[in-house]
């Protein structure tokens, strides 16, 4: 079976600086992947590279068997990649609704469905992106990526810097998206224990290369690997 996504010996970075050092990755349709690792190990660069926003050095990326290595970023969205950037980057001078409609593509996700998942956004539909709280911005960023009706959702630290109650709300939504809808996703997260229960597989990056891969359940149980690569000590 053709995997949904596969990369082969991927080297990339920003300009001349090399960040990714030969990433080999495959993800089957309907599966979710946690992308772990400490700060500065290349997680965001990997996601940005999949979205087409870094300098490609060498290697290939295939999406559903199609070579998208050289595809421009806006065409990758059309090819089925939805992206939630790290800094959220909602369009500040667009209203919440415009943020959703400006980039929407036909498919099962519509504005109404997205609103039913995030009722709070519906309340604030007429507000500008710049007027939203951090949590609302993050919801909008996720909702916006869904409007692309992606085959593969890339989430760059979706839970970072949010109040616990918002985190819980977002976790429910994410669970709905990946388990309820069966959307494939790659999620970057600092806190491994938080995200592993949501995902099927996990990889750990260090200095731009994959140093661990396995099922999420295995990694959760593997205290040695957690300690070694993530600095996570024994759970109580």
């Amino acid at each position, binding site marked *: 079976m053709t995997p949904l996504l596969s990369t082969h010996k991927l080297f990339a970075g920003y300009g001349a600086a090399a960040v990714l050092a030969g990433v080999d990755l495959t993800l089957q349709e309907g599966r979710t992947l946690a992308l772990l690792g400490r700060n500065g190990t290349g997680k965001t660069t990997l996601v940005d590279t999949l979205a087409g926003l870094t300098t490609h050095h060498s290697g290939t990326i295939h999406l559903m068997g199609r070579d998208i290595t050289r595809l421009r970023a806006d065409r990758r969205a059309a090819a089925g990649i939805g992206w939630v950037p790290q800094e959220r980057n909602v369009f500040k001078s667009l209203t919440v609704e415009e943020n959703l409609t400006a980039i929407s593509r036909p498919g099962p996700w519509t504005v109404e469905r997205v609103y039913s998942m995030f009722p709070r956004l519906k309340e604030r539909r007429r507000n500008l992106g710049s007027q939203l709280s951090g949590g609302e911005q993050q919801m909008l960023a996720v909702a916006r990526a869904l409007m692309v009706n992606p085959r593969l959702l890339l989430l760059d630290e979706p839970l970072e810097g949010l109040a616990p109650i918002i985190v819980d709300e977002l976790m429910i939504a994410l669970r709905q998206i990946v388990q309820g809808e069966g959307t494939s996703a790659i999620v970057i997260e600092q806190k491994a224990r938080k995200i592993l229960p949501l995902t099927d597989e996990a990889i750990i990056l260090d200095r731009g290369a994959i140093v661990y891969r396995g099922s999420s359940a295995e990694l959760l149980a593997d205290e040695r690997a957690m300690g070694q690569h993530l600095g*996570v000590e024994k759970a109580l």
Partner: protein
Amino acid sequence: MTAVLETRDLKRRFGAFVATNDVSLKIERGARHALIGPNGAGKTTLVNILTGVLPPTSGQVLLDGEEITNLPSHTRVKKGLTRTFQINQLFADYTPLEAVMLAILEREGLGSRLWAVVGSYRKTVDEAAALLARFGLASVMADRTNRLPYGKQRLLEIALAFASKPRVLLLDEPAAGVPEDERHEVLSIVSDLPADVTVVLIEHDMDLVFSFANRISVLVAGAIFAEGTAAEIAASPDVKAVYLGESA
């Protein structure tokens, strides 16, 4: 021990966003001080304020007890405070020799000389050559900076700061983006910096931080979250929770 670099209630806003929030920091003379924290915690903003690249919204910066909050960058360099950048900030079409010459000439107060040619300052040339050799750049001294391998550019980034003979050197992720095979060269230069130079290191690589720093400040959301010796920080459950990785 006295603080060689100190900040008092430093604050910086960008619109409604507070990037640096009441940071009061004391760096002791000769310290190996690391500044760590999650992405977007305001580490680079802090370094920009310390070196005069950005003005603070309020608060003070002191160097050896003297207030330098409103001094321009070049005056701070003259007073002994300089830095490297996370993303290389080099002179693209200069050779390493020319770049280092520039820094030494400015340090010696010769930069405003209009008439004598650069090559006639023989002692400066000698010093530049020695400095380049020390940083492993002697063999490429005549190559254009933008044609150097990335690792060499990183070394030049540090050499350039070092040429100003700083008393306090701020290193912003010196090993960022350096390919694995060129990494050890950068790291050994960092660990061999002379003991009388105070070094403040911003770094994500925890192996490097813990092997290098004797004191660590953790920055979260623009504010100092925790501060202590390397051992204290490594053992702190709070720091693990917000940065190093969670414990239960």
